[in-house]
């Protein structure tokens, strides 16, 4: 569906955001909507959102967005790679902002913004390594595919960095509907706990993570969230989150395009503040994350972040070529 906002900006710039999935509770997409809306407000323009549900509708929505001929078409998610490349080639006048992925070839009218999630996951793992009492951490992951390994593998490496004895196990949800199966996610988290894991990375989708947190609450272990601050969903059980600042990134990208510098490949990691942990943000004390109770861990992890930013440590991207 579409949502148009901004009445006063009828003659300002217009933006269309196309999502790959229904927005729902997907914090990543919600932040994107926020980002586009904020940009519209800032530049005195309008924005609308086209929600897709499957590959067929992604293609439909993208074509419709181009027909609207807004100042910028914003597409979020790697699902757009092919469609965006095609439309960009056919419509050289149209500017595109591609979030979270990039086209294989580069186009002058496509601005890409990607995240180095693995850097933040690595830091979350480091926290787990410091906090674990059983020397065993794990992850519940939506699917066994490269994109999701970016959350789980670095988590294990980070833990090993701060705690050489640590053991790491990851389990995958799979099944007929991996992105919407909180019951299975919960059962998997419980299985991990049963084998001695006491800190679990929840890379189990928006709905799945709720299952992971429930298991943590019942099993008395701890979990990590992704995308946004998930600590309020299960206060006392969620240690910290890998936060992707999509809103910041979109605003940045739109500024660049309107400012006449399109076509860049922009990468956001810890250094660019595109990624962080809730515990490393200024308002960490109000986050309801348990990490706030461990200032010494925060301190140690902050130091680790600085080393990554400085380039002393390079976190391997599991999905990278």
């Amino acid at each position: 569906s579409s949502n148009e906002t901004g009445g006063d900006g009828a003659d300002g710039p217009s933006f269309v955001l196309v999502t790959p999935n229904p927005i729902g509770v997907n914090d990543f997409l919600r932040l994107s909507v926020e980002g586009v809306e904020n940009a519209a407000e800032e530049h005195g323009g309008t924005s609308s959102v086209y929600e897709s549900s499957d590959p067929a509708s992604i293609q439909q929505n993208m074509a419709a967005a181009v027909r609207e001929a807004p100042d910028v078409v914003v597409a979020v998610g790697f699902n757009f790679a092919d469609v965006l490349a095609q439309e960009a080639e056919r419509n050289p006048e149209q500017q595109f902002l591609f979030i979270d992925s990039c086209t294989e070839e580069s186009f002058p009218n496509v601005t890409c913004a990607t995240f180095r999630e693995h850097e933040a996951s690595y830091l979350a793992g480091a926290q787990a390594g410091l906090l674990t009492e059983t020397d065993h951490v794990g992850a519940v992951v939506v699917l066994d595919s490269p994109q999701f390994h970016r959350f789980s593998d670095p988590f294990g490496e980070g833990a090993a960095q701060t705690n050489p004895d640590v053991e790491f196990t990851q389990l995958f949800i799979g099944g007929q509907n991996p992105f919407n199966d909180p019951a299975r996610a919960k059962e998997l988290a419980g299985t991990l706990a049963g084998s001695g894991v006491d800190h679990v990375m929840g890379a189990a989708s928006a709905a799945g993570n709720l299952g992971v947190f429930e298991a943590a609450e019942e099993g008395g272990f701890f979990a990590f969230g992704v995308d946004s601050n998930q600590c309020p969903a299960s206060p006392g059980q969620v240690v910290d989150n890998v936060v992707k600042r999509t809103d910041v990134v979109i605003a940045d990208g739109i500024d660049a395009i309107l400012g006449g510098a399109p076509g860049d490949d922009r990468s956001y990691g810890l250094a660019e503040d595109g990624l962080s942990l809730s515990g490393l943000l200024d308002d960490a004390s109000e986050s309801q994350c348990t990490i706030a109770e461990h200032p010494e861990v925060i301190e140690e992890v902050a130091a680790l972040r600085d080393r990554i930013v400085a380039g002393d440590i390079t976190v391997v991207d599991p999905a990278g070529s």
Partner: protein
Amino acid sequence: MTIDPALFAAALRALTPILFAALAGALCQRAGVFNISLEGTMLVGCFAGVAGSWFSGSAWVGVLAAMAASAAFSLILAVGHVTLGADPIVLSVAMNMLAVGLTAFLLRTVFGTQGSFSDPALQGLGRVDIPLLADVPVLGPVLSGHSPLLYLSWLAVAGLAVLLYRHPWGLRLRGVGENPEAATNLGVSVTRHRYGAIVVGGALCGLGGAQLALGNVTLFAENMTAGRGWIAVVAVMLGLAAPIGVFLAALLFGLAEAFGFRLQAVGLPQQAADAAPYVVTLVALFLSSRRIRRRDEAKGTLTR
């Protein structure tokens, strides 16, 4: 990988929602209605269960709401198929689509949220420790400490078996499924019995949904049944629509799932774990049908 009580306890939890739905499917099958709307009907139960529990503050009100809502939802199949003669497969597929849309729509309008709803204040079903049994070494951890609906599902198996094979209503229902014309001629209403089977089945699916949303977890997420209703359809086939058979079939799925989790930890690809239950089912069907076929061959009724 370790085989411990927790594995079997996990299998029992995994099987419960499937079992409720499969019992519903078996009941309908016995009445001669091919019902593949279990997935959607269960999803409606998930939503109604969470809504009922949320607004009343009692998980049991949620369970009743789930039963009522799913039973009402199943009336689409009853009216459409039994009264109007529509194809049950078409109706069921449409119902499954409708359930996804409807629950998402209601989530938006009733709870003002999208994707999922959970709240620490939402009442779940909790667990029951069974006195004495809880202290038995291996059996205790497996059988005790589950959601009350899990135990209810076992009662439902027994109840349904008695109903089908010992109660007049069950006999009439089986007759309706075997030869509706003959039943009509003996003054037994095909319509009434099929409505009964579908609506009671709906209520059972509601229980399955309530167990999933208030027992296995305590939240609602769009499309959270995640194919369990389809597994139930398969379990009905494998269990030959008999309550005990269906229970065993569902147990097979529960075990396959719980084992699959653990095998992953030792390196089994997730996709192989996903496919395993279906392959196992196919083999089981093949073995059981071979027995049936040998009997038929002996009778020489094999038609070429």
